[in-house]
């Protein structure tokens, strides 16, 4: 009867902690509805791989196998997820006001500032870059870059990236209020959308892929998949494929991605002091992104006749559409007639493109 106590006698305190973390993730997903599509599979996966004598995360276990095929091999899962995301995004508000592109670039500041901060804390260059990418506020990009750089902290980076994405409604309003005045938050912006032709909407994903591919060749897979998804949406002849990419493909990959990432949440990889440092750096990345976006808008206001509400700069991060909604809500709080939704959506989708390019840029510089 010794086999009955084999499991319980092999359990370590680290595994117990990881099982508790798994339970916390499940509670956050169900009770707080924080990124439930990802945190729930991750939480359950974390419990499964940390049970004593579990072989699920080994190369011949299902989670280990999924990791080898879906992430380690050709980073298929994050890239396939990008096709779904591309199919979900309407770039119309951005195309009707291309000036908003600049905020997507500005809000990537957090990535690069956090890279420097991580090197100051003693992380290696590859790990620092992988941690910095949390500032992309984009789960698939974080997974893609961290894995491509061979970071030892893939599990922690993914958990932190998705957790802070879920915490954007808490982080961003606090930071925005600290760095803007009531008067600035009240600035109204006219919305006069130009008509965007179908030709522009079809050519846009093709042109972006070519430009991003030439400037940062490592970004082709990220930007290409995102834009391919968008082309399916906009071409008008593949409605069934577009719908499948938006719903079935995105849901299926999210489900598998959550479980797969759990393979990196084994106690020996996760329970380290560095995980706490990554959590702190991830928060810094989101704060830097927000501050840089707002400051860029303030600088632009110094030179332009038509004033820009600085808050829309904060929507330049990739957390779509949460960030745009927060800015819109804050605009309405400052002035009930101040509707910023379309402007902030434009910045937000620009952030989606910019974060994918930023991921590719980091890889192009380091690999």
């Amino acid at each position, binding site marked *: 009867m010794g086999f009955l106590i084999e499991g319980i006698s092999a359990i370590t305190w680290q595994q117990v902690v990881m099982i508790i973390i798994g339970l916390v993730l499940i509670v956050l997903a169900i009770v707080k509805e924080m990124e439930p599509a990802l945190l729930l599979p991750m939480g359950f996966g974390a419990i499964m791989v940390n049970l004593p004598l579990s072989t699920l995360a080994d190369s011949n276990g299902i989670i280990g196998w999924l990791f080898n095929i879906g992430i380690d091999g050709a980073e298929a899962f994050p890239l396939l997820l990008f096709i779904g995301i591309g199919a979900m995004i309407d770039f119309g508000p951005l195309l009707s006001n291309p000036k908003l592109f600049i905020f997507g670039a500005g809000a990537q*500041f957090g*990535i*690069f500032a956090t*890279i420097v901060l991580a090197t*100051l804390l*003693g992380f290696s*260059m590859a790990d620092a870059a992988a941690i910095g990418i949390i500032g992309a506020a984009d789960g698939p990009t974080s997974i893609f870059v961290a894995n491509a750089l061979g970071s030892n902290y893939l599990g922690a980076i993914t958990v932190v990236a998705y957790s802070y994405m879920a915490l954007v409604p808490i982080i961003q309003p606090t930071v925005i209020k600290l760095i803007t005045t009531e008067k600035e938050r009240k600035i109204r912006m006219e919305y006069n959308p130009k008509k965007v032709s179908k030709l522009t909407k079809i050519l846009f994903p093709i*042109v972006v892929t070519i430009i*991003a591919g030439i400037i940062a060749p490592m970004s082709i897979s990220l930007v290409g998949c995102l834009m391919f998804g968008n082309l399916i949406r906009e071409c008008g002849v593949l409605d069934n494929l577009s719908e499948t990419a938006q719903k079935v493909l995105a849901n299926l990959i999210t489900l598998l991605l959550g479980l797969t990432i759990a393979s990196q949440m084994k106690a020996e990889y996760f329970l380290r002091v560095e995980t706490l440092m990554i959590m702190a750096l991830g928060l810094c990345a989101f704060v830097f992104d927000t501050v840089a976006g707002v400051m860029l808008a303030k600088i632009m206001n110094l030179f332009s006749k038509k004033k820009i509400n600085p808050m829309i700069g904060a929507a330049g991060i990739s957390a779509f559409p949460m960030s745009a909604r927060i800015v819109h809500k804050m605009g309405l709080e400052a002035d009930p007639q101040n509707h910023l939704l379309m402007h902030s959506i434009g910045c937000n989708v620009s952030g989606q493109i910019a974060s994918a*390019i930023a991921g590719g840029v980091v890889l192009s510089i380091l690999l």
Partner: protein
Amino acid sequence: MNKETVLQGLNVFWKGMLAIFIAIIIIMLAVYLLQKVSEATDNVIANRAATADEREAVKQAKRAEKEERKLARQAAKQAKKLQTPPDDTTNA
């Protein structure tokens, strides 16, 4: 803290920010260009459509004119016929 790694990090910082701004500005310019091209294409198509409409209108006007002339001729013929008395009836 490794001084060399920090310097490398700073190197990634400025190169990365520069690259991202260059990429985004080029994309922004490309979008402006795309909009101009599609506007121009729309105008050409609209002009063509307008000229085609005009041509059709002229054709229709000509056709209507012809029709009118034809009808006038027929009416004149009929009026002539009615004015001239038939020869056979007098003889009989």
